[in-house]
């Protein structure tokens, strides 16, 4: 028992900040939803309009929960419950892998298993640790809703519904860790199962049957295949049904038992799915720094590009829906008018969604440049630079691939927007608007690219943190600056907010020349300073 206590204590200590962020972030999400609903959909009539629009355009349910009535509390959960559950699921799946397969992969599990703790106690400690984290999440989420004046019973059901999905994915993570050889493989298996079941749940709801007043939808059978569907069918505040949550608990127990059984069958460090063997020889493309950077970055670039494509599709296809809701709810209409700055509502939608595209492109670019820093600290940069490769050429490879990534994201978004126009049969000029916005956001993303490169050259230690913080601040200023009523000059500090937009009478270039100037100057400066920069010693 004392060994178990020590293992549990060590897990809590390792995770203390990470879990505070996950649990706290989930609670903040709940609070934000409460505030958002009260502000945007203040009257019951507003909410009834929205639910009716959802019933008419069920594709929205892919990104929302299950409608259970227009009451303030039930409506809030319709908007936010899937995401609370998703947070709990990500937290739990990563937690399970971190304390099982990752420990094994790094050789720590071997040290522990050689003590009287053995092979089973660490797994027990991981399960208890995960249960504890989910209980904390449930309690805090419930407290947030109850504190906002929602019914206590429904608040508790809400918290437990999110945590129940978390427990299922604790089990998924544990089983994935047994099956896969590496923590990376186990984490991706967990994420794929998570996203898949999220999508299945949304599809099932979209195919569901609306009630006659369009205020409530009965899920189709598809939803019942997904833990997210069980949580949503608890319908907090409306039904407060416990039995779908019992399904979650049963599956969580079954998966956990399976993980214990699998662990008994295998050696430490062994796995059931062997890692694929690598290539015997490098492909012809892997022969230059540029080839290496592309090889390292291509997986994530593809991910960001798919994100850009989907956002582009939504930009034009959701426009019509929002138009419908917006004309009926004054608060929503005001919001979009503030963001689209004089264009039509549909043009406003394109601008808003392409601001997100800009952020995605910036993420792809920044992530590529931060790889330079990772190569440096990891020690692999040293071997490349000890070969006949100049420092400037080396950094240039990261900049070029980063720029290519941003181009790919923006181009995919424009393509998506065009597809959205075709599918909806909407106004074809929207595709032109999307092209303008996409090109503009590319310039904004390039600004982040060169800024991150400058940080890498001047203050390498800050590269990763500062690179991402810049994107986050720009996102907050650009997206929410107008909402919070910040002065224009503050909002305009964000590159994503000053890109060209198409208006009803032509193209407004706005800050385009500034952006291009910053890109050119920053790029030249970063590469020039790289000439003088030493390689930091690996640590």
């Amino acid at each position, binding site marked *: 028992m004392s060994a178990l206590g020590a293992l549990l204590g060590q897990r809590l200590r390792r995770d203390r900040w990470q879990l505070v962020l996950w649990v706290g972030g989930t609670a903040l999400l709940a609070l934000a939803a409460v505030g958002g609903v009260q502000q945007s959909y203040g009257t019951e009539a507003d909410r009834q309009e929205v639910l009716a629009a959802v019933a008419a355009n069920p594709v929205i349910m892919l990104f929302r929960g299950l409608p259970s009535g227009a009451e303030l509390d039930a409506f809030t959960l319709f908007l936010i419950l899937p995401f609370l559950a998703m947070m709990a699921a990500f937290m739990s799946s990563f937690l399970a892998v971190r304390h099982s397969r990752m420990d094994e*992969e790094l050789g720590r599990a071997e040290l522990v298993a050689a003590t009287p703790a053995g092979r089973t106690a660490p797994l027990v400690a991981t399960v208890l640790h995960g249960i504890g984290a989910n209980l904390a999440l449930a309690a805090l989420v419930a407290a947030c809703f109850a504190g906002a004046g929602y019914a206590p019973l429904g608040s508790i059901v809400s918290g437990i519904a999110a945590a129940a999905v978390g427990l299922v994915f604790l089990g998924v993570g544990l089983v994935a860790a047994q099956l896969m*050889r*590496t923590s*990376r493989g186990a984490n991706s298996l967990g994420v794929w199962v998570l996203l898949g079941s999220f999508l299945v749940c949304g599809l099932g709801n979209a195919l569901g049957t609306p009630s006659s007043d369009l205020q409530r939808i009965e899920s189709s059978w598809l939803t019942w295949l997904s833990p997210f569907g069980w949580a949503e069918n608890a319908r907090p505040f409306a039904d407060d049904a416990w039995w779908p949550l019992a399904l979650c608990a049963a599956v969580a127990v079954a998966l956990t038992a399976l993980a214990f059984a699998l662990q008994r069958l295998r050696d430490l460090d062994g796995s059931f799915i062997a*890692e694929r*063997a*690598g*290539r*015997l*020889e*490098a*492909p*012809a493309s*892997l*022969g*230059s*720094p540029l*080839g*290496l950077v592309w*090889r*390292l970055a291509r997986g994530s670039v593809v991910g960001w590009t798919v994100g850009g494509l989907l956002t582009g599709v939504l930009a034009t296809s959701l426009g019509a829906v929002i138009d419908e809701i917006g004309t009926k709810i004054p608060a929503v209409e005001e919001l979009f008018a503030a963001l689209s700055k004089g264009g039509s509502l549909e043009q406003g939608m394109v601008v808003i969604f392409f601001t997100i595209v800009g952020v995605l492109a910036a993420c792809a670019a920044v992530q590529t440049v931060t790889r330079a820093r990772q190569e440096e600290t*990891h*020690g*692999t940069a*040293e*071997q*490349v*630079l*000890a*070969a*006949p*490769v*100049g*420092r400037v050429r080396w950094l240039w490879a990261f900049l070029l691939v980063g720029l290519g990534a941003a181009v790919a994201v923006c181009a995919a978004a424009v393509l998506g927007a065009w597809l959205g126009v075709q599918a909806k049969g909407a106004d074809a000029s929207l595709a032109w608007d999307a092209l303008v916005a996409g090109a503009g956001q590319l310039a904004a993303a390039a600004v982040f690219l060169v800024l991150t490169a400058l940080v890498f050259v001047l203050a390498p230690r800050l590269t990763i943190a500062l690179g991402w913080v810049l994107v986050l601040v720009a996102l907050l200023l650009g997206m929410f600056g107008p909402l919070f009523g910040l002065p224009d000059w503050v909002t305009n500090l964000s590159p994503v907010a000053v890109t060209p937009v198409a208006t009803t009478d032509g193209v407004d270039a706005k800050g385009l020349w500034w952006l291009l100037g910053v890109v050119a100057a920053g790029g030249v400066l970063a590469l020039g300073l790289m000439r003088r920069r*030493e*390689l930091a*010693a*690996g640590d």
Partner: protein
Amino acid sequence: MTTVIRTSDLVKRYGRTRALDGLDLEVDAGQVHGFLGPNGAGKSTTIRILLGLARASSGVASVFDAHPWRDAVALHRRIAYVPGDVSVWPNLSGGEAVDFLARLRGAAHRDPGYRAEKARLVEAFQFDPRKKGRAYSKGNRQKVALIAAFAVPAELYILDEPTSGLDPLMELVFRREVARVRASGATVLLSSHILSEVEQLCDRVSIIRAGRVVESGTLAELRHLTRTEVSFDAGNAADAADGTDASGAADASADTAFAGLPDIHDAAVADGRARFTVDSDRVAGILPALASRNVRGLRIEPPSLEELFLRHYGDEIGDGAASAVEASAGSSHTAREGARR
């Protein structure tokens, strides 16, 4: 003979610490030059400067008469490098990493010469090139860099503790490769703290301490600066001198055992053996005296590299054995240091 690597008064500061403190190093063409010193002495810092990965704070460094920082790319076409702690890309296979590094150094994608050489080395080092980088152990990561370095010919090989993590069999393969490139006329700078490796491979040795070279020369030259240890069975010597009784044996034999031996130091009798040291160039002078005594179990041991090394580092270990070595050698060391300044 041309000089390939030359540094003079090389200084590297990291904040307030001086990683290099006036380092003078010369490596001639065709040499295998051992660069000896424990971790933190400044070996890797020197190598980073020679590779143009770091800049000297002051002093001069040249490689092939070029500036290692300014002319880095041109120089690197002639250099192969193996770091002491090789990192590989986690999602590249070992074979891919070897190919990539070799291609950066000029190997063509389909060059049959390179492919044959790589295949030979993969075989010799018993390396599995299909595994992903993250699955390799320390020794296998080391093999990635070694194979990439030896598969493409170079004029200068800079090897920074290249065998850490290799088993003795693989170390043998490594030594064979070093011998091969030396036979082809290449120069090798071999940084190491494995003394037997240096003793077997190197023509010259530089010992580095606290950022400066404290000793440099061929092994034979270095041995000249130290004393050779001589020992023989003490009982025999005492018997031969006279028939002292057992009670006073220790004292008497210590006095009598060494009588008539010229220029000897540290004479002592312990565990039944009489030992003393003598300057390495005076060993011949004591042989007649030893012969006339008809000593048994005579052993004359030239100083090992370990002892050379401990003369400069013994004080850092701090236990009795090491300080004894230091005590016997420290005085001459200090005198030489003073003369150099």
